[in-house]
């Protein structure tokens, strides 16, 4: 074995090494220091001695047992040595053909200020031609994560030209990270970019030097010409309904005087125009441009193909305004001379469906609502009955008549009858709202519930238990409503509950209070219109000033496209591609701030003579393998010596002491070896699932990470006909009720017996309430309690056993919320019916369908955790109530 070339041994001193060496030195010293054995012997005759007193030493130096001490000292030295992180440099010969080079082209707007796209493409192709004979070249740009391996210079040019300049910003660091994740073993990374600080920001290229050699290609500097660009466009909220005005903020970078024109157009129609003057030191000016509203709407309608005098919002691009700045003397960056903003015309018509309660206005509780709607300018129209020929209203407010008036069936429409979700219209961009509100606080909420069921085109079985406002609120949250207004988490304070849009884009807002001033509740006549304005804004029926202000900002202005790319779901960006192409230039690109050269990677010398050799240098790698091998050998040697020493000590000296220590060590190692995690795992007991490959590794990990519970990732299946097999389980998940039924359609005797003994049954894909009641009827044969399935109320323990849920997940392809039902038996939740298969959603490889987004899976996991806690602890906050049940399980 050749001696190690210590000259090639790099050592890096660190605080750890310093600490280790200090501790080691102190330990070695302590080993020598022996506290004097304080052997004191009483000797009474000492009393008669008259001698000078002596200070008795407490510590003394004594030689330690040499073998253990030397072993310790050597190991300490070794530890210090390894704390210095010794490595050895290994070299391998270069191989130009195996070198891998990647070229990253920056296509952000700032680059366009210094060169044209053609120049960039040519330059890239030229570099490629130089590198191709020497190495394997790959290519990508900052606009997307596509990496190509070009075969010719033409291919390189086409790749650049096809993409064109990107209007979104991009961080080179993120792009490089993406490349390194895809392309392994890169030798050199060449970045073709200007020195724009917004692109280079946050890129710590020095950290990559161990992995790849990062260099940039020399690029011409930015010219000193001024740059004028639109920084912000803001719609002006105004009382004048005949014009539409915008405030445009223009910024100028540079000191030269600039004048020019500005125009705003929808499609080809130039509707707004003006001039601007940025003189001297003034670098900012705000212009207000106005255009006739009729002309604007006409232009928008022509572009969007809308009808009935309303802006067609089917395509949001029809409501896009293109603002163009035209400096007379030209400016350095042309891309940011165009700016896009939303037109933000959303004024809608509103239909109020409410029977008149009297001839006089004071007799009619809807009067205040109508007045408020008129004041707010949403053009309310009142009908006594739902219109059979809808006028395309974006908002319908349905106020069912008070009890004793007309029947519900004739009054309440279905969602499709509202006309809002008329067939043939695209559902992508259009969202219409239906408000359902009681007429009075003491209204018949059961009637309201039936109206709700009819609107949702589903059975009204769950309305039987709705008699007052409290039960109405509970029902709304249990069928998937999201609380609107009130205190967070306090369901009873909710003003209304909003439901997710159905496939037709219709949304429902069910109120828990009447839409009228109620001074006793703090809703005065003065505050009522304000509340209504907020609700209209929430429903999109009214453009508030704040919304108008934000509408321009709603147009994408992407600082870093890689944030979107990294967050993309299934390769789809959160911003449509078309919109991305028209994104506004980020401020950082327009400002054109240059990064310091010393902060950027070095410039690649492609033309240099030794570039070929430098391209693929001698491979250099640091390794500590040999040192680690040596360490292991040495430790084994030391252990051998120690063992010999211990054996000698054992055989010749204190056998009992050594034996005791050895036994302790053996006991310790044995206990450590046998120390397993508590085996209290919860099995996922299933029946009726045909997915043998159903696994729940992720779910088990999540549950274990969030709670103190351990769930087996492999579900177990039970035979429902076997009483003994089922009796061992605490809970059971069943896919559909078919496997539970006997010939009469009721639960099998074994299952009934199991539930009576404390079993917790979860039936998935079950939403037929009558079928559920038939299923569990035998449970209540001898019971005084009714066999009553109720929707899970919002204050149920399942909504708060671990996570505080505001509603239960609704996963169905129809997007029509359905309630979760629960059956109380023996004072506890004994059977739970879920309208869909939660097991499928939370399994490791869920099939495609509803509830596949991360947010939905998270909701389902949280719900699962709540269910498992309910099944194991029931209502642990009031567990004294369930103590008999717990005892029953324990027995």
């Amino acid at each position, binding site marked *: 074995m050749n001696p190690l070339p210590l000259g090639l041994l790099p050592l890096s001193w660190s605080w750890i090494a310093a600490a280790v060496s200090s501790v080691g030195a102190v330990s070695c010293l302590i080993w020598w220091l022996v506290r004097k054995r*304080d052997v*004191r012997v009483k000797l009474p005759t000492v009393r008669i001695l008259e001698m000078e007193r*002596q200070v008795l030493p407490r510590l003394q130096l004594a030689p330690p047992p040499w073998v253990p001490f030397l072993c310790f000292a050597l190991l300490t030295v070794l530890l210090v040595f390894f704390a210095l992180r010794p490595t050895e440099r290994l070299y391998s010969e270069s191989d130009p053909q195996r070198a891998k080079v990647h070229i990253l082209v920056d296509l952000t707007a700032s680059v366009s200020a210094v060169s044209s796209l053609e120049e960039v493409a040519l330059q890239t192709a030229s570099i490629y031609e130089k590198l191709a004979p020497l190495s394997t070249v790959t290519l990508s740009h900052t606009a997307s994560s596509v990496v190509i391996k070009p075969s010719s210079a033409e291919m390189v040019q086409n790749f650049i030209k096809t993409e064109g300049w990107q209007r979104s910003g991009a961080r080179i660091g993120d792009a490089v990270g993406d490349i390194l994740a895809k392309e392994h073993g890169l030798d050199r990374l060449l970045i073709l970019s200007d020195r724009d600080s917004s692109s280079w920001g946050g890129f710590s290229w020095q950290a990559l030097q161990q992995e790849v050699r990062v260099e940039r290609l020399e690029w011409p500097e930015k010219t000193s010409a001024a740059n004028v660009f639109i920084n912000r466009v803001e719609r002006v909220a105004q009382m004048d309904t005949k014009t539409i005005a915008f405030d445009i903020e223009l910024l100028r970078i540079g000191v030269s005087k600039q004048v020019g024109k500005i125009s705003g157009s929808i499609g080809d129609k130039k509707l707004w125009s003006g001039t601007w003057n940025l003189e001297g030191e003034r670098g900012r000016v705000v212009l207000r441009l106005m255009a006739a509203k009729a002309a604007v709407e006409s232009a928008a309608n022509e572009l969007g193909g809308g009808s009935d005098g309303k802006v067609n919002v089917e395509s949001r691009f029809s409501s896009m305004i293109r603002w163009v700045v035209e400096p007379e003397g030209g400016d350095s960056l042309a891309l940011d001379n165009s700016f896009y903003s939303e037109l933000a015309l959303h004024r809608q018509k509103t239909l109020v469906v409410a029977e008149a309660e009297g001839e006089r206005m004071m007799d009619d509780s809807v009067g205040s609502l109508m007045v408020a709607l008129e004041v707010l300018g949403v053009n309310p129209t009142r009908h006594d009955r739902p219109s059979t020929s809808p006028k395309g209203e974006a908002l319908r407010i349905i106020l069912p008549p008070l009890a004793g008036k007309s029947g519900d069936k004739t009054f309440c429409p279905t969602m499709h009858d509202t006309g809002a979700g008329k067939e043939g219209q695209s559902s992508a961009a259009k969202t219409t709202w239906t408000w359902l509100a009681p007429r009075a606080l003491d209204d018949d909420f059961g009637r309201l519930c039936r109206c709700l069921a009819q609107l949702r085109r589903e059975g009204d079985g769950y309305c039987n238990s709705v008699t007052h406002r409290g039960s109405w609120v509970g029902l709304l949250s249990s069928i998937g409503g999201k609380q609107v207004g009130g205190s967070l988490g306090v369901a009873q304070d909710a003003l209304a509950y909003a439901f997710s849009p159905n496939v037709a884009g219709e949304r429902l807002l069910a109120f828990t209070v009447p839409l009228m001033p109620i001074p006793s509740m703090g809703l005065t006549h003065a505050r009522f219109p304000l509340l209504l304005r907020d609700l209209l804004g929430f429903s999109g029926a009214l453009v508030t000033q704040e919304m108008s202000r934000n509408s321009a900002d709603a147009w994408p202005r992407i600082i870093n496209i890689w944030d979107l790319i990294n967050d993309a779901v299934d390769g789809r960006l959160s911003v449509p591609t078309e919109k991305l192409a028209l994104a506004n230039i980020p401020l950082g690109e327009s400002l054109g701030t240059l990064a310091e050269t010393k902060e950027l990677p070095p410039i690649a010398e492609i033309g240099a003579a030794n570039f070929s050799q430098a391209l693929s240098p001698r491979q250099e790698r640091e390794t500590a393998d040999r040192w680690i091998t040596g360490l292991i050998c040495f430790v084994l040697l030391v252990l051998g010596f120690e063992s010999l020493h211990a054996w000698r000590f054992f055989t010749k000296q204190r056998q009992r002491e050594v034996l005791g220590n050895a036994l302790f060590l053996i006991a310790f190692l044995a206990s450590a070896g046998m120390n397993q995690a508590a085996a209290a795992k919860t099995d996922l007991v299933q029946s009726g699932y045909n997915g043998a490959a159903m696994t729940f590794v992720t779910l088990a990990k999540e549950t274990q990470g969030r709670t103190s519970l351990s769930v087996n990732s492999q579900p177990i299946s039970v035979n429902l006909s076997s009483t003994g097999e089922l009796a061992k389980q605490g809970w059971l998940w069943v896919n559909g009720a078919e496997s539970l039924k006997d010939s009469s359609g009721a639960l099998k005797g074994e299952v009934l017996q199991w539930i009576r003994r404390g079993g917790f049954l979860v039936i998935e894909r079950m939403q037929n309430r009558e079928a559920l009641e038939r299923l569990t009827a035998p449970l209540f044969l001898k019971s005084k309690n009714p066999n009553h399935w109720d929707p899970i109320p919002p204050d149920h323990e399942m909504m708060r056993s671990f996570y505080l849920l505001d509603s239960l997940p609704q996963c169905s392809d129809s997007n029509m919320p359905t309630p979760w039902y629960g059956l109380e038996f023996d004072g506890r939740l004994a059977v739970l019916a879920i309208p869909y298969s939660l097991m499928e959603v939370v399994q490791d490889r869920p099939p495609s369908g509803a509830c596949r987004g991360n947010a939905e899976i998270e909701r389902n996991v949280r719900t699962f955790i709540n269910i498992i806690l309910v099944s194991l602890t029931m209502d642990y906050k009031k567990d004294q109530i369930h103590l008999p049940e717990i005892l029953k399980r324990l027995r």
Partner: protein
Amino acid sequence: MLLKDLYPDSLDEWRSQKARFSPRTHGSFLSPIRQTTRMPAPSRKYVHGDPVRNIDWRAFARTDQLLVREQRENSSVSVLIHVDAQETMIWPDISVPPNIRMGLPQKIDVAWRMACHIAAGHGRMGDLVFICIWRDQKKREVFQVKSTRDLMERFHHGIGESENVAGALGVEETGSKIEKEHTMVYWIGDGLSAIEQTWQSLEKCRYGAFLQLLSSLETSVGWLSPTHSYVDQNPPRKEYLGEALLQGEVYQNKLAKWQSKCRLRCQSLGRDFGVFTEQTPVEAYLRFLENVGLATRSGPMVRS
């Protein structure tokens, strides 16, 4: 036989021993009353001052020598035996290494044997015997030896357990008894703790003896270790390294000097002084007692 094996022997001969000296009186001392007798045994030469009526004129006629024939009856006296049971007497204790301490009785144990032995001897002779146990310089326990059984019970109870020396058998707190003048006083102790009380007690009596009892570990230094320290806990607390004690035989010299001082003090008081250890032969001990007049009357009192 050594002192550590001393036993208050022949206690069952208590009454016969009493009767052996005189059919009428008993005691360990001769009565000062002299009586004329015709028996030849107690004859001696006339000394000036002897009563003339005690002269055996017939013998003078035969031998032309003035012989006095007189006899003195035995007399019962009060004997007080002090036993020093202070902390210095409770030694060797557990601070002494076990391999050295092994088999050695504590000083209080030997002292108790000696006290019981002396008490038994005087009891046999019909004396009034008190034993005073000094727990510390202020606390003392005094009891009167009333019978052989009483003494034996106390002896057996106290042997081996220093704190039980006469303690658990109902010590009479007869403080007044110790205050009165006793004819004979024995002080058995090491003289380390209550030396002033020793001298005071010995001063008050007509006859007395100081039996200084030390452990053989105190009189010899062969067991001292140079690395250990030897300490006396009593203030002023003293602690010396064994090395210092052994150097130049400092310890032995100091001890001899101290014992010499004690002897001189006893001599000045006219009292007997003897140094004993648990290794002292019983014969030597009895010889000492003879000097104070006890052994000659009671004979050997050691269980053979």
